[in-house]
């Protein structure tokens, strides 16, 4: 392996001794030569194709996240929340205005599955059976929020079962003693008391609306923690839930507190209002943003 020409590194704290100075470049060349990978590696220029592939992959991931948040919100079902499993295929096109249209197909998994599931995923032979499948079109408006989403998914849980689970969650919620004696969910050790699990799921549902609106080509969010439950009411048959959630934005690593107020009743569209504490940036203004659910359209089944 012929040694590659590389600039020598900066000298260490002690400084190289005179005799070694002559040998340092030679030493380094030898080191590089032996450690080097097959020819072609080391300081290669990017092939435009490779860059595009990575860009595509990133955009598809972003689109899948936005689509899934939107889907979860519109489904309005805390017992049927989904997470992204994998992007199967897709194509992203960027127009001169730097707006981005993405068409994609992706698979989903249950959100509510126990983290330490006893059945290893590798045992599922027929992958499609336990995963849902979605196709979506997502339109990002050059770093502006509220990507337009059109998404349809195969049924993951049978409709009756889903309604049953929702209603079960709802009855649990009604039984919770108010005022709720909680500081944060989960606690610092990641523990969520089973009796409080419905609160986490409902909070995630509300946060899905917020995370959908805030996702752009470059920004994506996860729900890190519920930092406070401000109000929890279950009179008038609906759950009236006012809470503060901490969202984690991945590319900036920032934690964004959002105050969310939602009203939920099983089977009815979710009503959400929110206000996030934004970092002051030139493009954004802080302020209250409101959103409420529109009448749900039928979710098509494949």
């Amino acid at each position: 392996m012929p040694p590659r020409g590389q600039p020598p590194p900066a000298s260490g704290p002690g400084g190289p001794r005179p005799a070694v100075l002559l040998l340092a470049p030679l030493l380094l060349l030898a080191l590089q030569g032996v450690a080097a990978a097959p020819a072609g590696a080391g300081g290669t220029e990017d092939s435009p194709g490779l860059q595009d592939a990575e860009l595509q992959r990133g955009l598809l991931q972003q689109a899948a996240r936005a689509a899934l948040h939107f889907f979860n919100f519109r489904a309005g079902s805390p017992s049927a929340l989904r997470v992204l499993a994998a992007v199967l295929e897709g194509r992203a096109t960027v127009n001169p205005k730097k707006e981005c249209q993405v068409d994609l197909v992706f698979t989903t998994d249950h959100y509510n599955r126990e983290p330490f599931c006893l059945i290893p995923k590798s045992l599922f032979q027929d992958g499609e059976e336990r995963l849902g499948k979605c196709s979506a079109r997502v339109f990002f408006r050059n770093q502006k929020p509220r990507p337009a989403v059109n998404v349809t998914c195969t049924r993951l849980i049978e409709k009756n079962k889903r309604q049953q689970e929702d209603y079960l969650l709802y009855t649990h919620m009604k039984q919770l003693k108010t005022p709720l004696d909680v500081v944060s969910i989960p606690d610092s050790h990641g523990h969520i008391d089973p009796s409080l699990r419905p609160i986490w799921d409902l909070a995630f549902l509300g946060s899905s609306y917020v995370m959908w609106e805030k996702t752009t080509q470059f920004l994506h969010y996860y729900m890190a923690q519920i930092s406070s439950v401000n109000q929890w009411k279950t009179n008038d048959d609906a759950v009236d839930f006012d809470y503060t959630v901490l969202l984690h934005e991945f590319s900036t690593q920032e934690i964004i507190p959002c105050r969310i107020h939602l009203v939920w009743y099983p089977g009815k569209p979710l009503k959400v209002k929110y206000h996030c504490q934004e970092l002051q940036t030139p493009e954004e203004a802080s302020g209250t943003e409101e959103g409420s659910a529109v009448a749900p359209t039928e979710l098509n089944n494949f």
Partner: protein
Amino acid sequence: MKPLLGTLYLLGILVPEGLGYDGSLAQPRREVVEETVNPWKSLDTYSYTKYHPMEEIYQWMIQISEKYTGVVTQHFLGMTYEIRPMYYLKISQPSNNPKKIIWMDCGIHAREWIAPAFCQWFVKEILQNYKDNPRIGRFLRNLDFYVLPVLNIDGYIYTWTTDRLWRKSRSSHNNGTCFGTDLNRNFNVAWCSIGASKDCHDLTFCGTGPASEPETKAVSSFVESKKESIVCFLTMHSYGQLILTPYGYTKNKSSNHEELIQVGQKAANALKKKHGTNFRVGSSADILYTTSGASRDWARDIGIPFSYTFELRDNGTYGFVLPAAQIQATCEETMEAVLSVLDDVYEKYWDSDGAGKVTPTAVVLGLLVSFMSVL
């Protein structure tokens, strides 16, 4: 040595309190509820499936070096911003042959609690198994392990006392209006050129200069001093389920990129076999985001060949606040990945019987001899 360590340890606890080194002027501070240190707590009852506050980790390090005296020593690395001692554990079986070094650090970002948990698990696994397990035993014939269980001690303590999602160190900036530097943007490699912020309010604040922070200085001066011997630099983070190779500051690849990917992919496969968890492998700029001043990139650029960032569980469901119930599974699978990397590193430099292979050093010596003979 031990009384000195004990004094330094106490100093580390008392001095910040005494000087009122709270730092969080802006927000009201929650009651400091730190568990009382019980000096007689036995190592036998230490739980590796729980998260431990810093006081307990300090104590654990002392107990580990006491229990495994022939093989483990605790060493002082430097002081943090809030004047707390940084210690690493050196695991080394005494022998006549010169050793190569494996470096592992955890907790450079305060909120990534699963990382320090893994460092402790790793140490425990090596020490409990090196005598009976030939795979681990052979490593110690030619390798020394240097493990830094918590790099960002001030930040880690802050996540226990005040803000569970704190990321940076606790250095004070702008006349006490901002706190913390992102230590993984503070290393002297393409410093603050991309993927980092010059604004002290931001979570990727790169500091006031390359290696401006005492924690960064402590790690980099030590690692630099040992760089000829270090073959592997592993820095543990969460979350994202990734094995990252250099670089973050450029899409260009390191000279041994193919090899790093191959070794990384083998490690991800080994990890997946354990509990089915999927890890992706790639350069930081390719599969994560651009960063400058990252320790992994710095380590690679000073010549350490195998340099990786591990982003442990999960994928965002719990994120930084990974349930303690998942510590065991996460540590078990990560252990498989790290052992796989160590296998590859070991086999690259030594035969299965421990005899040295052609190494960069050997080639260099050969060249030196021939060069000298020409003069």
